């Protein structure tokens, strides 16, 4: 008792202090890495966003000038932001619901692991290979997609060569690559946490499959839906590689996403200050959207039943 009282009085016992020191030592690689490769760069990027900085010269403080430039003068800023936002909304809505449907499907058929593996494969394909392969699949004259459409009497569009169809094309490729990926596997695990008795009880009450889906499945896995939605939004806002390789932002800036704009400002025009401002604008938008989603989730996410996602 006395010893305890003494150790409480002096704050921390030597044993506890030793343990704490050892703990910091073990996590020190992460502390160093986080400081040098994440936190430091983030702060530097915030500082640079208020400067004019071309590589080679010194950064000069210009206040909010970069932000004013983006919001009022940069002709590509608003279109690329709007395009990215539209792409993200469609992709997240379609992607999350199709992944959920795929998971429910897998849960209800035999040969689950076979189909799961097959659905998962596209998500392993490197983006560069994905872009090259799909540029050919969507080739307007000799591509597979338009060939299949022709079976149904549909004259396929020009896809990556058409300003109207380039974004739907990229959405199609993104869906192919992501429906069966990690998101679907997480849904599968979430569905496993739904107690089977609830379906049985609903069946006795005469609830059909569709009623069960909306009144049991959806509420019970709502935390998983939220998690997947947040991760997907972040991913789809960062869309870059696919458009960069397959279309180079074209035709006529038709797929010039926000990240392409940022990338070219930084690494083609070497406007490091302006690129940093672009990065922070997108970061603030993404953070707000994530927080908004979390706030909104209070209305539709049910944590009390869920066994899996806490």
């Amino acid at each position, binding site marked *: 008792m006395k010893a305890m009282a003494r150790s409480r009085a002096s704050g921390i016992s030597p044993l506890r202090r030793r343990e704490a020191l050892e*703990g910091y030592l*073990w996590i020190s690689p992460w502390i*160093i*890495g986080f400081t040098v490769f994440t936190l430091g760069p*983030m702060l530097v990027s915030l500082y640079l966003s208020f400067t004019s900085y071309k590589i080679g010269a010194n950064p000069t403080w210009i206040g909010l000038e970069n932000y004013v430039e983006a919001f009022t003068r940069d002709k590509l800023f608003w279109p690329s932001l709007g395009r990215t936002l539209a792409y993200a909304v469609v992709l997240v809505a379609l992607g999350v619901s199709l992944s959920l449907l795929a998971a429910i499907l897998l849960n209800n058929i035999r040969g689950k692991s076979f189909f*799961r593996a097959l659905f998962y494969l596209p998500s392993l394909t490197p983006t*560069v290979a994905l872009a*090259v392969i799909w540029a050919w699949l969507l080739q307007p004259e000799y591509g597979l997609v338009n060939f299949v459409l022709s079976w149904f009497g549909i004259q396929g569009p020009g896809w990556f060569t058409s300003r109207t169809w380039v974004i739907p094309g990229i959405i199609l490729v993104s869906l192919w690559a992501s429906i069966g990926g990690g998101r679907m596997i997480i849904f599968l695990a979430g569905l496993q946490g739904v107690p089977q008795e609830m379906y049985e009880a609903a069946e006795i009450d005469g609830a059909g499959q569709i009623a069960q889906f909306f009144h049991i499945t959806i509420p019970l896995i709502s935390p998983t839906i939220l998690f997947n939605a947040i991760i997907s939004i972040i991913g789809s806002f960062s869309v870059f590689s696919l458009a960069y390789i397959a279309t180079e932002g074209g035709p006529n800036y038709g797929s010039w996403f926000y990240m392409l704009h940022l990338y070219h400002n930084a690494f083609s025009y070497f406007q490091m200050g302006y690129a940093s401002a672009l990065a922070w604008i997108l970061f603030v938008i*993404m953070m707000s959207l994530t927080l908004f989603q979390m706030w909104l989730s209070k209305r539709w996410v049910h944590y009390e039943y869920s066994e899996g996602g*806490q």
Partner: protein
Amino acid sequence: MTTNAAQKTASRQVSQSIVRPDLIWKLLAYLIAIIAAIFFALPFFWTIGTSLKQQTELYTFPPTFIPSSPRWTNYSEVFRLAPFGTFLLNTAIVTAAAVFGQVLSSAVVAFGFARFRFPGRNALFVVVLATMMLPWHVTIVPSFLLFRSLGWLNTFLPLIVPSFFGASAFSIFLLRQFFLSIPRDLDEAAKIDGANSFQVFWQVILPLSKVALATVAIFAFIEHWNEFIGPLIYLNSTEKFTVSIGLRYFLATPITGDEPRDAILMAASLIVALPPLLLFFFAQKYFVQGIVTTGMKG
């Protein structure tokens, strides 16, 4: 007895009438599953077919799935027309080093979070998790400037070194969860035998965590093999290229001869995509476990 039997027949009838709509759902489910399977698999088969085509067969309508006379040399052309062997070797070096660093540093950090009490531990762990949601673009400009001032541009170091400093929150999280599931009694027993915490880590925890470590290694492999933006920004001479930017270089290189350019490009894409796909075939169960552990903690 008779009433019992009657009840049984009745209940069977009831269940049959329930089964009927069920049967329709089942049929529909299999139909959708097969269509989806075709949707996901067909592009792969199509690409394999295209990669073996002759120049003339590439541009015919209707297109053919199986080339009439496969041109196997398309695959060797990949290595003749671009230094693809070098690209593969570079990628193997970067991936091996980064995977090693990621597994090692994640295990060390995860051990710290799982086994020691220190002020601010929970807050720091929340920061680890938050970095999982951090989009890559916020740090890209200053990271480039940092590596530039270190003289690391056009070297593999920017692609490797961060891995040794706990760059993957996902791996740290996954290993911490796993370490927490190992009973502390084992640590205590080793400590009574005189082991220090390094020995506990090395001789008790790691040998028990082979599955979790393999899972982390597999995900790290896929991540680094497929990495595009890093190499794009940090590497600028052809002999340093990894496969992902090598493929893009290939895309931009004109071919002067009469080789079937698009077919060779497909062959190259398949070569780039093959290692992750093969790994998946041999290690499927690790994938599912790994994703489930992280996903469920959302």
